[in-house]
């Protein structure tokens, strides 16, 4: 790893100011992607600004129809939270499926979203639940946030502080893990919102990163059942194709995961 300078700011304002003074700064949340990347010398930030312990980026609040989760909350904390398990059990369940136990003890919600790995789980949940991403500067709707793999609406030096999720009527997540790496080859988060809208977020499968499947949404709007998805032919266009699976295989996995997710709560 190349040399770097580590900072642990106490507030979001201090973190942002440290970033603007750095020649090539990077925010560090749980570090479960950034640190391995630095070890491989694929990233060499001059300054690492640790936002993982900032108080205003912590905590979980449920109020009415929303769940607000601090960006620095770890996957293990979200998975174990009684508040999240009560309001959106599918979200807590999904957090408990990320990586492995030791990774879940450090990795964070904000870090996962800012990185926007095409196989990350959280983006599917954020998109399906119509979440709003709060930063130090503004609020960004999930639709506008994800902009292709490893790419987001965040500007340089902008920090995610909280994510506010809508509580759905019901929701579920199913993923097919790559048997070696454990990463999602297809992960589908289905949600029926309280106003009747259906939202489906798909991760792991597309070359463009996380996306909403309008075909599956339309089918579920007609009838909320696994059978409604069965006749669909998901297009393999834009799907990833690599040694782990062809585009057609991944397109089929998306359908199968959507059916499993719906069946798990039908």
């Amino acid at each position, binding site marked *: *790893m*190349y*040399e*770097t*300078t*580590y900072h*642990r700011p106490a507030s979001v304002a201090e973190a942002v100011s440290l970033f603007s003074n750095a020649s090539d700064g990077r925010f560090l949340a749980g*570090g*479960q992607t950034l*640190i*391995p990347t*630095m*070890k*491989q010398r694929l990233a060499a930030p001059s300054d*690492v600004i*640790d936002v*993982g312990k900032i108080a205003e980026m912590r905590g979980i609040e449920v109020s009415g129809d929303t769940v607000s989760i601090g960006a620095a909350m770890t996957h*293990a904390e979200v998975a174990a939270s009684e508040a999240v398990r009560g309001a959106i059990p599918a979200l807590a369940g999904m957090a408990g499926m990320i*990586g*492995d*136990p*030791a*990774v879940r*003890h*450090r990795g964070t919600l904000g870090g996962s979203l800012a990185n926007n790995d095409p196989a990350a789980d959280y983006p599917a949940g954020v998109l399906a639940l119509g979440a709003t991403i709060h930063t130090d500067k503004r609020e960004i709707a999930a639709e506008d946030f994800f902009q292709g793999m490893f790419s987001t609406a965040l500007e340089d030096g902008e920090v995610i502080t909280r994510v506010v999720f809508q509580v759905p009527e019901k929701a579920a997540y199913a993923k097919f893990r790559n048997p070696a*790496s*454990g990463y999602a080859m297809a992960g589908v988060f289905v949600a029926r919102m309280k106003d009747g809208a259906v939202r489906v977020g798909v991760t792991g499968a597309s070359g463009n990163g996380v996306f909403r499947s309008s075909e599956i949404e339309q089918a579920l709007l007609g009838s909320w059942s696994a059978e409604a998805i069965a006749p669909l032919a998901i297009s393999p266009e834009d799907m990833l194709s690599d040694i782990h699976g062809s585009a057609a295989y991944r397109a089929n996995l998306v359908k199968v995961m959507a059916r499993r997710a719906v069946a798990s709560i039908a």
Partner: protein
Amino acid sequence: MSTIALKVNGKDVSAEVEDRTLLVELLREELKLTGTHIGCDTSQCGACVVHVDGVAMKSCTMFAIQADGAEIRTIEGVAQQGALHPMQAAFAEHHGLQCGFCTPGMIMTAIDMVRRLGSDLDEATIRHELEGNICRCTGYQNIVKAIQAGARAMASQ
């Protein structure tokens, strides 16, 4: 360079570290606690798992400076008064190892598993929980048996 103060296996330690020093490098190279292993360098194998403030973490995937003020427990610190920790004893009893390289990480993960999930662990749960610990010798059969027995032994202690 920064000076950090932490507690390692119950002892106060102060160390001078570079900002880029990983926790596992501090443990192995400065403190000579070589029971914590480096298996993969890509955060997958779990040979480096230690407890940071009581919680299992991969010491190759955090900076030493992030452990400033923390309490660290490594495999060297789990035995009590010269007696093996029940989880260590179970690994010996059930032969939960072959070459032994992954064993420290397995045991630290197993103790954390019991902390979170209790001592009544079925085989499927244990196998799933070992997702972040790789063994290239055993095929996991005896590791699972050892953890199941070790968990029960921890409860009766």
